[in-house]
């Protein structure tokens, strides 16, 4: 048998040489190759098992039906079997394994490697045939590889033959083959021509993760197998019953093309291993575990083989010096949640003076009072309201600290226990005292204005309160109307009193297509806002977007793309799809969502609110019964105005 394999191998090499010399393949060599394929399959066949499942979901994902049969590979004589996690996405209620000798065993799931999508299960059997493992460093692009499966009603495993197309794919997790890989053989082995197992066949995708990612490439000539050597290396961890999860350390890199970019840190996530290890924005990662790194791709290839709980050593170049940091990867980085104190600062001057203590807040409970000058936070001096806001928000909502205030010439230290942002808007909120001075002679235009934006040649309208004064920064509301209805008169009449009372400038860029806003309009809206900020004094922390109906999804995109310039979004009458982006401590965002109870979208809007809350954005969700003609009822307008007037809360 062995000698035959040797002959076949020699034959393979000869074929390659021969192919160059003559056009027609040699019949004898074809025969020997074929024989080698059959033998390789026969050697591994006893370790390839059929797995049947009962119960579970009908569909793995929309449009992808769950099957009842898949393949597994025996990896220990005492009954451990690996398969692709793909099949178990349906969460079957019972698993049954049939060995090549037709014996049947019930199986129990032990653990799943979620990095490589391999599931481990166990049957109570002894003396099972274990295949030989092909060493990973011996894999060569172009060598024969056989994909075996056992989903057909047949005694022998099914065979698909191809070559190794690449040895390090999907961030080092997999080898690639052009053998046909599909639900027919997911979970089965990829075998070399010597009958050794190279890997376990799984669907994988470079872009996405999850059990079903990559299944769209079935039988396409792009198939993947997770090297068995890698799986054997973590087998003991899996046997303990713990799922293995991808390891994160919490950074993003500069540049859009993450894989091809230089490994320069763009952001270091709050409370992540990277932050704890002292990595900083701007650090260039130049090494991981002693291996040099030039591009993000190299880093990802090493991380692709690591799990949460693994320790890595990163070398960072910071200016002139090199820093080595050791960190332990984690499976999940908790979303950043800002802490809430419950005050509104005075808007004139730099100093951190309390303007309003919000009711039922940590500040109120700690005994803070209006006009208190906060001089220290957490026993460190505070020089400005902006600095205070920054430091408050970066604490955890369950933390306690001390705040030092000057009140009536005396210094007092108060203990404060922080909290999460409330999910309601204060029932009352005193507006900031407005200027009653007469406007200056060179004052800018106020009142209802119609403008055309240069460069875009597109229209927008504004309302600038008569009370606007250059030296008093105003709030700014960017109103985005649904494509088919400008809502100008309804919004203007509803907001005019609020704009006057609370010092808010309203700007309403006009959508020029009845179908609604498209991503192409982002620049126009940005330029509109820039133009307003150029002409008027706008408080940077009180800029918000307000949208209704089909403008809501666009408003959300605009908000998330302009986090540096937008601090809130008041959305009504439509829901958002997908996931909320990460909450960024440097760019704080707050949301107000509302819907009429009669609206069909009410449930979906509530789900959107839940999603935003889950991402730890301060979010208010309100419903109203009484609907005004085409726009929000006046009580709701007042609520949104109060919410907007409290955007600078901390």
């Amino acid at each position, binding site marked *: 048998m062995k000698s035959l394999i040797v002959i076949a191998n020699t034959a393979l090499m000869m074929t390659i040489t021969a192919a160059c010399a003559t056009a027609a393949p040699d019949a004898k060599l074809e025969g020997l190759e*074929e024989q080698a394929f059959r033998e390789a399959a026969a050697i591994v066949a006893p370790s390839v098992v059929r797995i049947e499942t009962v119960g579970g979901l*009908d569909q793995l994902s929309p449009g992808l039906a769950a099957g*009842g049969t898949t393949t597994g590979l025996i990896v220990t004589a005492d009954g451990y079997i690996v398969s692709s996690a793909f099949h178990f996405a349906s969460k079957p209620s019972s698993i049954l394994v049939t060995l090549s000798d037709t014996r049947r065993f019930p199986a129990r799931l032990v653990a799943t490697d979620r990095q490589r999508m391999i599931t481990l299960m166990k049957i109570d059997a002894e003396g099972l045939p274990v295949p030989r493992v092909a060493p990973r460093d011996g894999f060569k692009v172009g060598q024969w590889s056989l994909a075996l499966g056992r989903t*057909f009603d047949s005694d022998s495993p099914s*065979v698909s033959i191809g070559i190794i197309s690449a040895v390090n794919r999907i961030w080092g997790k997999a080898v690639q083959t052009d053998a046909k890989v599909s639900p027919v053989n997911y979970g089965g082995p990829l075998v070399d021509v010597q009958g050794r197992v190279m890997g376990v066949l799984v669907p994988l995708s470079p872009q996405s993760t999850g059990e079903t990612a990559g299944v769209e490439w079935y039988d396409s000539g792009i198939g993947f197998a997770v090297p068995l050597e890698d799986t054997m290396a973590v087998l003991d961890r899996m046997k303990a019953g713990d799922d293995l999860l991808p390891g994160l350390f919490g950074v993003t890199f500069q540049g859009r093309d993450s894989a091809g970019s230089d490994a320069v840190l763009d952001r270091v996530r709050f409370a992540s291993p990277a932050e704890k290890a002292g990595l900083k924005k701007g650090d260039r990662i130049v090494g991981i575990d002693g291996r040099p790194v030039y591009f993000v791709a190299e880093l990802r290839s090493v991380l692709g083989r690591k799990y949460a709980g693994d320790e890595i050593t990163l070398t960072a170049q910071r200016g002139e010096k090199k820093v080595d940091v050791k960190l332990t990867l984690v499976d999940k980085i908790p979303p950043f949640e800002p802490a809430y104190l419950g005050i509104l600062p005075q808007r004139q001057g730099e100093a951190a003076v309390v303007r309003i203590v919000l009711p039922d807040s940590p500040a109120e409970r700690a005994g803070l009072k209006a006009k208190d000058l906060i001089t220290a936070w957490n026993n460190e001096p505070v020089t400005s309201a902006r600095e205070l806001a920054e430091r408050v928000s970066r604490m955890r909502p369950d933390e306690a600290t001390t705040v030092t205030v000057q009140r009536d010439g005396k210094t007092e230290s108060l203990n404060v226990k922080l909290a999460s942002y409330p999910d309601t808007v204060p029932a009352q909120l005193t507006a900031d005292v407005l200027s009653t001075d007469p406007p200056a002679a060179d004052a800018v235009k106020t009142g209802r204005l119609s403008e055309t934006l240069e460069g875009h040649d597109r229209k927008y309208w504004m309302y600038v309160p008569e009370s606007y004064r250059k030296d008093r920064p105003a709030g700014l509301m960017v109103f985005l109307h649904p494509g088919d209805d400008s809502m100008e008169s309804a919004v203007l009449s509803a907001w005019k009193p609020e704009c006057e009372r609370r010092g808010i400038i309203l700007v309403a860029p006009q959508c020029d297509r009845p179908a609604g806003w498209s991503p192409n309009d982002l620049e126009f809206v940005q330029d509109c806002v820039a133009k307003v900020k150029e002409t008027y004094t706008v408080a940077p922390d009180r800029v918000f977007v307000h949208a209704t109906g089909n403008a809501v999804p666009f408003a959300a995109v605009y908000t998330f793309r302009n986090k540096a310039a937008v601090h809130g979004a008041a959305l009504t009458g439509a829901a958002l799809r997908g996931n909320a982006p990460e909450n960024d401590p440097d760019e704080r965002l707050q949301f107000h969502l509302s819907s009429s109870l009669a609206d069909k979208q009410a449930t979906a809007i509530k789900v959107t609110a839940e999603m935003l809350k889950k991402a730890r954005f301060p979010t208010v969700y309100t419903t109203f019964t009484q609907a005004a003609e085409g726009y929000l009822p006046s009580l709701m307008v007042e609520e949104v105005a109060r919410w907007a007037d409290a955007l600078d809360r901390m």
Partner: protein
Amino acid sequence: MVALKDTARMNRLLRTMLCGLLLITVTVVECRAQSTSETIATVSPKVVKIFGAGGRKNLYAYGSGFVVSAEGHIVTVWSHILDGDSVTVVLHDGRRYEGRVVGAEPTLDLAVLKIDAEGLPFFDLSIPTPTVGPGVRVLAFSNVFKVATGDEPVSVVHGVIAAQTTLSARRGVFDAPYSGPVYIVDAITNNSGAAGGVLTTRTGQLLGMLGKELKNNTTHTWLNYVVPISQLQTAITEIQTGKFAPRKTQDDEEKTAAPRRYSPRDFGIVMVPDVVTKTPAYVDRVIPGSAAAEAGVMPDDLILFVGEHLVASYRALRDEFGVLESGDRVKVVVRRGDQLLTFEFTAPRKNIEP
């Protein structure tokens, strides 16, 4: 069917035992070593292009066939292309003939045509065909997507045998026009117009006829199946010699609603209510004194097999019990905790309306 399955099992057993021997056999057969290109040169002239009815919507109007007699008998699949009075058959060298259907066997998805020609190269069905296993190199010849026109020979695709299995007409497994043993090919052989083409070994021995496009209901992938020539041989010869009488089709039986002759309750088993499409077949309770109670079936047992068939859900269980006949022995395998237990019952006498 049962007999056939047993024979198949015996064959498989023998094959497993004599695996090494088989290898040798194959090697012996291949003594007249012939390269792939030489094979293609001899096989291509025996495969024809067929044009007929269709051409609207998704119904293509072209197909493939192969010559089985010097005087122009052509085997193809039974399909809508043959719906017209006649079809056009184009040989490898561009000669065109009018073809008539001389016989068909719908249960085999088979039709035989005749053209008025002489001295054609043909596959001699009297030569025994080999049985091959997974990993054996094969070639598929067909006019897939009617790429070949006029005097162009049909397209050749290479691959290996992926598996030998059985297409079963059992509901929910394959919605196949043919049920019986098949080869599954590791190559995309079954596409529009390919059905009726041939699969050969790389030395040109005829293995079977390419089937239609079919989705595998177990894995939801496309299935490249080939009907072994041994399955078709008798019917082809009978049609050729005019002795053919179509067999009773299973279609009539299949089309009627699934029988509901027995239910688990007849054995004293009350199942957990069927609430979702794939409700597992869990036993809710066992009626005291019933056959199931005596055998030892317990509440919360999960029924996994009825006979040899896996019951993936309550509905599958209902279908399996439904087809039992009075006096049948029925073997039931249940999972209790991490154990598999087997129980056997006899279907009680019952007055069943015809």
